[in-house]
């Protein structure tokens, strides 16, 4: 019976326009919509549930108490998660070092065999949560994982490298993996099932110890890279344009 814990992070939704606050050094999150880090943490939840379905065990999903956390947790329950935990603290201004320390203190108590989280998030300014959490717990970490299996008391994980090359790594238990992609795309759960989960499952709330923010760089200013409203036109003969394009390819690092 594998004891699986999934850390589901929430990130500001990039569908909304991002603005920088009055300090000029942080995002204005007043109107942010917090959603699951869907490209990766959604896959971590799916991978956890796939493992449970294949090998038995329990899946605990743990998320920071931000607006939107209940949705994430109940959706996970509708997919098959057994235990839902919301960790209370002021996470909107926290960094990943603080999140990792706060969550490791709680997760340690669960004595998990396996901890999954998304390999990265778009607001990882001080490193990604997975390896930070692994080290806080003193556990081994492998990231960019796209497959996990348990064999002979060890994990066999598939780790992705560029160009489609995959390394199969053998890892001792317990371990933390940063999920790049679940073995199959995250399943869709009907709203009716989520609504049912809201009635049949409950969210446990736990308090985080004081957030220790050390380890992150100090930001002096944030800015938006200039967006081209219209393409910069390259003029000239085919030969001249080709030369300009080749220079551009080099500048962009593809030649």
């Amino acid at each position, binding site marked *: 019976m594998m004891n699986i814990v999934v850390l589901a992070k929430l990130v500001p939704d990039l569908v909304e326009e991002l603005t920088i606050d009055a300090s000029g050094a942080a995002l204005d999150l007043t109107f942010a919509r917090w*959603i699951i880090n869907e490209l990766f943490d959604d896959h971590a939840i799916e991978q956890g549930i796939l493992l449970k379905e294949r090998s038995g065990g329990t899946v605990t999903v743990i998320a920071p108490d931000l607006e939107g956390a209940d949705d994430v947790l109940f959706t996970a329950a509708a997919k098959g998660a057994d235990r839902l935990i919301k960790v209370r603290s002021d996470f909107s201004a926290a960094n990943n070092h603080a999140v990792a320390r706060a969550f490791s203190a709680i997760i340690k108590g669960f004595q998990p065999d396996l901890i999954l989280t998304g390999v990265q998030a778009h607001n990882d300014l001080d490193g990604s949560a997975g390896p930070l959490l692994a080290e806080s717990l003193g556990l081994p970490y492998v990231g960019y994982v796209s497959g996990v299996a348990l064999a002979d008391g060890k994990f066999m994980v598939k780790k992705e490298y560029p160009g489609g090359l995959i390394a199969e790594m053998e890892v001792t238990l317990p371990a933390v993996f940063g999920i790049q992609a679940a073995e199959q795309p995250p399943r*869709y*759960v009907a*709203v009716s099932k989520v609504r049912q989960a809201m009635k049949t499952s409950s969210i446990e709330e736990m308090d985080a110890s004081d957030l220790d923010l050390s380890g992150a760089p100090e930001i002096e200013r944030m800015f938006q890279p200039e967006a081209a409203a219209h393409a910069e036109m390259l003029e000239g003969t085919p030969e001249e344009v080709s030369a300009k394009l080749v220079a551009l390819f080099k500048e962009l690092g593809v030649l």
Partner: protein
Amino acid sequence: MNATEVAERSFEAKVLEAVPDGERLRLCLECGNCSGICPFGYLMLYPPSRMIAMMRADRINKVLETDTIWMCVSCYACTAVCPSKIPVTPGLMTSIKEELLLVGNVPAELQNALANSQRYGNPLGESPRKRADWTMGIQPEVKVMAKHKQPVDVLWFVGDYASYHPRVQSATKALARVLNALGVDFGILGAEENSDGDSQRLAGERGLFEMLAEKNGRAFSKYQFNKIITSDPHAYNALKNEYPALGISYPLQHYTEFLAERIDQIKLLLKRQISARVTYHDPCYLGRANGVFDPPRELLCAIPGVELAEMTHNHSNSLCCGGGGGGMWLDGFQWEKAHVRLSDWRVREAINTGAEVLAVACPYEPPRFEDAAKTMPGADKLKVRDIAELLAEAMDV
């Protein structure tokens, strides 16, 4: 007991309860008309008549293992021809899609649209805050109810594609200008408007539909207005036939009905000729499902210079554009299976009428038909125009 078994045990009961005349399912003659008229029936492993046979044989679980039901575009063609008057589309096909959704047999593209509808209130995944962005530059300004805070005569339920899709926005703006020219006192919900949810419901997501309907219902109840008009036949269908059961009921018109009532006033404003042969595509959810055939044609015929030509399939026999019942979010899936698009078929019929303009009245259609026309031989001169766009042009507004 796994989900498939749950589904199997209760499926017939669910269909019988799904719609008021669900029990007519028992009257199936196995004539096969439904499967024959279905535009994708030839690709479905279990088209409607075979599905009913499987249900009678207590083997519906076999059906749930297949994915060709996702070819169904909820166009009501089967329902219209059934001699036993079985509610095939709203009862059988919608229920089976609900079962497929519960067992997780859902193409990824569709999942995406459903997830977007949950999170953003629109299947396109656009920011709800930008729902009224299309109104920029329209004069007099389009009233957004939350800001206007006064009663209006008409609440315009704009709809998803009409609000967000860059091509369809031009039709939306045209309608706003036409309403302004007529002096209509209207407002919109803007960010408070959610997807009507009808296509999501027909794609099997009943729970999502109810969630969206409740949100719209709450928004309606905040404001004072005399009636709702909508540009979207899918919203029209939801508001007319589905919302009342959830306790959300208001006088409702499609914009073509609303304008046709003002035809005399409109005629005085139509100062420009549009000399063209025009053919009109009946949207499934305006025509076949809800019987609105004449108002769009009256409006077209009122435009000086317009010569209306009917396609082979017209009125209740109209062909689907392929966007209904979730088809709008299954383009890739359906293309893989069929290597043909329903919009191609429709555009070919339009070309055969010799028309220069294919007139439409549903926001799903301009992008679908224009896309089909791109590669269709002989379609280079065919223009796809919403009726509102033609009216605005003829009014010179």
